């Protein structure tokens, strides 16, 4: 169709892309992202339709129910722009076709967008940033903020353009290989990193003492404070003995906590079990908030002086 009457310019499409940032602004329990979607479509509707009737019909068409992960709305916007453009040029694109494309794409794409962005990209970037931030470095927040927004803006623009170019053929394209591969690769990456994070950052430390052995050391294995030369000579000798691994006191107490025993078995075993337990509880539809509050209560109770397990 080289002889289209009206066409969306690159500036129009860019404007839609920028506005899609506010997609969730009027998120509501009735039609969810409909207000934000309509708001994003406004530059295109203004360009494509000139009469009041057509404009009003288009606005109403785009105030229908819509909900997906906010970033993967971009390719859906792209396809919808292509459809609206065809329609404005007289192609027989029904209201139902536009609605069908939107609804048909929002579910599967949210299924990709939620795990990829909320459960892989953001946790990984945020964990990286947090590891810097824990040392008080401002680099942490900066890394997270800058990389996230570059990633996001690039994704929004390029997938919207992709959707626009592919038009109605996009649904076929999504069932093809590339997207599946990206999803699988991302989930492999995510699971690996999660395994590492569970080991490193879930902290449970059983301070309960299981054994405390006191031993008297043989002479020569501890610093004989009474018989050191006086003055700096004595300090020098004591320090060099200490550096050589000689004990400070004659009596030493070897304390073994429950945690030491667990660590010699498998480091990170308890965090792993706790994580598995949480997964189980979540699958039983226990709300995350309840589990969080319960864990705080457990932490406080087990730390009480007369229990002292944690």
């Amino acid at each position: 169709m080289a002889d289209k009457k009206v066409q969306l310019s690159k500036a129009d499409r860019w404007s839609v892309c920028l506005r899609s940032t506010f997609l969730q602004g009027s998120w509501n329990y009735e039609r969810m992202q409909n207000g934000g979607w309509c708001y994003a479509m406004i530059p295109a509707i203004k360009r494509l339709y000139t009469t009041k009737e057509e404009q009003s019909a288009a606005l109403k068409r785009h105030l229908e129910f819509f909900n997906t992960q906010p970033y993967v709305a971009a390719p859906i916007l792209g396809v919808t722009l292509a459809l609206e453009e065809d329609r404005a040029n007289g192609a027989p694109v029904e209201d139902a076709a536009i609605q069908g494309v939107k609804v048909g794409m929002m579910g599967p794409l949210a299924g990709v967008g939620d795990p990829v962005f909320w459960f892989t990209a953001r946790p990984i970037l945020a964990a990286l940033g947090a590891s810097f931030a824990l040392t008080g470095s401002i680099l942490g927040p900066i890394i997270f903020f800058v990389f996230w927004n570059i990633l996001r803006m690039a994704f929004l623009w390029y997938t919207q353009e992709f959707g626009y170019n592919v038009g109605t053929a996009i649904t076929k394209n999504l069932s093809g290989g590339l997207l599946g591969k990206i999803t699988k690769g991302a989930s492999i990456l995510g699971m690996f990193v999660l395994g590492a994070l569970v080991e490193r950052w879930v902290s449970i430390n059983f301070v309960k003492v299981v054994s405390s052995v006191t031993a008297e050391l043989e002479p020569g294995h501890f610093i004989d404070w009474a018989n050191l030369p006086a003055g700096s000579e004595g300090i020098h000798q004591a320090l060099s003995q200490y550096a050589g691994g000689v004990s400070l006191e004659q009596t030493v107490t070897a304390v073994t906590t429950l945690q030491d025993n667990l660590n010699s078995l498998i480091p990170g075993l308890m965090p792993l079990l706790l994580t598995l337990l949480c997964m189980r509880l979540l699958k039983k539809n226990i709300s995350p908030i309840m589990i969080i509050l319960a864990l705080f209560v457990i932490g406080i109770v087990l730390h009480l002086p007369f229990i002292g397990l944690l």
Partner: protein
Amino acid sequence: MNIVSVLLVFIVAFLAGVEGILDEFEFHQPLVACTLIGLVTGNAVPCIILGGTLQLMALGWANIGAAVSPDAALASVASAIILVKGGQGEAGVASAIAVAIPLAVAGLFLTMVIRTVSVAVVHQMDAAAEKANFGAIEIWQYIAICLQGLRIAIPALALCFVSDTLVANALNSMPAWLTEGMSIGGGMVVAVGYALVINMMATAETWPFFAIGFALAAVSDLTLIALGTIAVSMALIYLKLSESGGVVAAGGQGGTGDPLGDILDDYE
């Protein structure tokens, strides 16, 4: 806090509130929100540490479908303000986090209220669409966004005006067994976030990678970046191998010019 700081806190809180619903720029993530509050009040370092700590707890908090996650925006903004006002510096991080969790629940409730109010907003948009009134739709969109911003900005402003000593006294009156217990609980709460994520991603195919990650993390010499490199490499290798395996299976015979694939095929 002087008037300029309070004004800047209001703006930061507003942005965090807006982002709590938009989920685009991520101003509401503790890492960003706490840092910004710290910067505008001149307490950058403790607030960055608070942000990092809260962020680890909030890794798996995400709005999925119609479900709303615990509210990171109110939790991070309010706990950062309390940290600043408490004046304990880094030592106050643990008790600020103790305050953050109940606030995350309160924020969750507030956003649900606004999401209900927004039903009325989109009905106004319907009426504007009837008259093809573009401007009115845009204005209602902005109103809805501002409501979400004020959801955090107003409580933040109120916190600024509660007297410093009141906040400090309230924090100091918290007994050690409580704050220590809370920070022990905080160490465990991270598991809930991971569990949410794992439940979404786990398949029989990806569990072995979880196991490898878990085992390798015990080697403390490996940094997170090294672990990430291993993870990316393994994902690429796996995809490549499963792809060539697929080709062999589809062809029904060897000789694909992929020696490793042929060898693997022979073992089956």
